[in-house]
């Protein structure tokens, strides 16, 4: 569904991302993890078109999207939720999602957009809040809005950037459930995460990055047992995968 080939991003002499290649299968939940500064968000930015790669190729459902603009990638089926939540503060929740509904796929009429919006709002549990101005939402509600907005664009692949950051355990549990439901509706999910229990529960496959390079990939179990991964994390200044206080999502079927 999503394929990245030889992706590289250099800023001057510094390679933020190098030799990155991976494939995500349809309806897979794919996690990208790694210590801070590993290049995860840069990768996501390149995939969603906010940053131009120095080298490499990105394919969505077999189509080369490397040269497309962000808006065009959205039309091709790529959705994105941001790490630092960025709602349109002056608009209500519904209006926020409407933007995605109206413009996510070219040629969407007002009536259909309203339908899509209602659907997205319902799935993310925001329907009762539709008239609330986005600036008045709590953090969890804002995150749901991010996802709802992205969903309204009708994506086939959804990119999520650290949605769990700042959420309390109970909230994180709800967010995980939301992501699983999204996948059940046929959307492929690629997400960046620091909170390990979430990765354990959600990810079908995991890719580990360090210093801009992929260092391991496989199932969660395989990857966490890999000595290279362990040393990458423990060698870093913040061993933030050891969060006893993080979002414990408990065992989910």
């Amino acid at each position, binding site marked *: 569904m999503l394929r990245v080939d030889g992706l590289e991003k250099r800023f001057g002499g510094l390679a933020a991302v190098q030799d990155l290649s991976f494939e995500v299968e349809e309806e897979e939940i794919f996690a990208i993890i790694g210590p801070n500064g590993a290049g995860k968000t840069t990768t996501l930015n390149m995939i969603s078109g906010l940053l131009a790669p120095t080298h490499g190729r990105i394919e969505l459902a077999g189509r080369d999207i490397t040269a497309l603009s962000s*808006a065009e990638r959205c039309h091709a089926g790529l959705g994105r939720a941001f790490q630092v939540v960025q709602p349109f503060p002056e*608009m209500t929740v519904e*209006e926020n999602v409407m*933007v995605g509904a109206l413009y996510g796929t070219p040629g969407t009429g007002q009536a259909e957009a309203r339908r899509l919006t209602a659907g997205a709002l319902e799935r993310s549990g925001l329907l009762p*809040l539709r008239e*609330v101005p986005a600036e008045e939402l709590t953090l969890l509600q804002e995150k749901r809005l991010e996802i709802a907005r992205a969903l309204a664009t009708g994506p086939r692949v959804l990119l999520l950037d650290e949605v769990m950051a700042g959420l309390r355990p109970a909230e994180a549990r709800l967010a995980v459930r939301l992501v699983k439901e999204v996948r059940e509706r046929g959307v492929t999910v690629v997400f960046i995460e620091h909170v390990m229990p979430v990765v354990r529960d959600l990810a079908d496959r995991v890719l580990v990055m360090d210093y801009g390079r992929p260092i391991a990939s496989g199932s969660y179990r395989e990857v966490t047992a890999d000595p290279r991964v362990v040393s990458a994390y423990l060698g870093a200044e913040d061993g933030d995968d050891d969060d006893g206080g993080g979002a414990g999502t408990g065992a989910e079927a």
Partner: protein
Amino acid sequence: MRRALPDLLWTLLLAVVVALAPGALKGLFHQASVSYLSLASNAMSLAVLALSWDLLARTGQLSLAHAAFYGAGGYAAAVLAKLSGVPLFLALPLGGAVAALLALGLGSVTLRLRGIYFAIATLAFAEVLKALVQELPTGIAGGAAGLNVPPLFRPHFVPGAMQRWEIAYLRNADYFYVYGGLLLLAILVSVVVQRTRLRAAFTAVRTNEAVAAVMGVRPARAKLLAFVLSSALVGMLGALEAERLGSVIPDGTFAISTTVFALVTPIFGGLYTTLGPILGAGVLSAIEETLKRTFAEGYLIGYGLVLVASVLFMPRGLVGLANRLRRRRGPPPAGGAGTEAGLAGDGEGR
């Protein structure tokens, strides 16, 4: 466009008022109606200026080049007038077209500029354009002395006894109608932007271009569209004013004061709404006239103080003030503060 119906009805009402006003004024005030019509035309001119600037501001593009497009329209009219046999009315759409083309050019190269960088780039463009027009061969654009522009309406003489003021009245009434028409056009454009999906696109682009793009909005298209619409309107205004004033001259036609008024008025009245710029134009014109009549000299000091006070006490403009008062009086709407997207817009002056 369902929700646009109230707006369209109000606009229709305004059209009726415009059509009937001159006659009514004449009946009520006789000779004084001549100057009232002129004042009203000035206020409507300011309203068009304000509406057009607001349109552009909706995409986050704060332009300091408004006077350039106004001037382009004016000069287009002047140059057109030199060709014989062309009806003067064509000057308006031509002025709009010339300005729109210019905007397309400027808009394209400034797409990546934001905030004050964009503002200064547009300002620079305006200054350069003014100088270029001045340096063009005198045969084409009249150089520093400018060009004369034949008026759109010549005084018509009706055979039989007609007082001189009645002739002036007829002329002013003619202009009043044209200004009214242009204002209605500007309102229509503003309403369309407010009531269609364009509102979502413009607001999204204004708030955060990257996020808007990722949601499928094409920022470049939205920004250029806004630029073209805004400039076409002000270009037409420039052409009309040139034909009313009777001349164009670089220093006057491209004067930066036009830009200043263009941005002061909608901020004062309430940004990103249709009512705001109109209200702002009406109130500011009235204030200016009143001040002018009360204090012959230095009345602008009062005008400046009004502006300062308005920012301190009405940060969201007149419309924002009205919304605030309305919220305090009426019953709290269900489900939170709820934003109003009527003619009064979001009530947010951002």
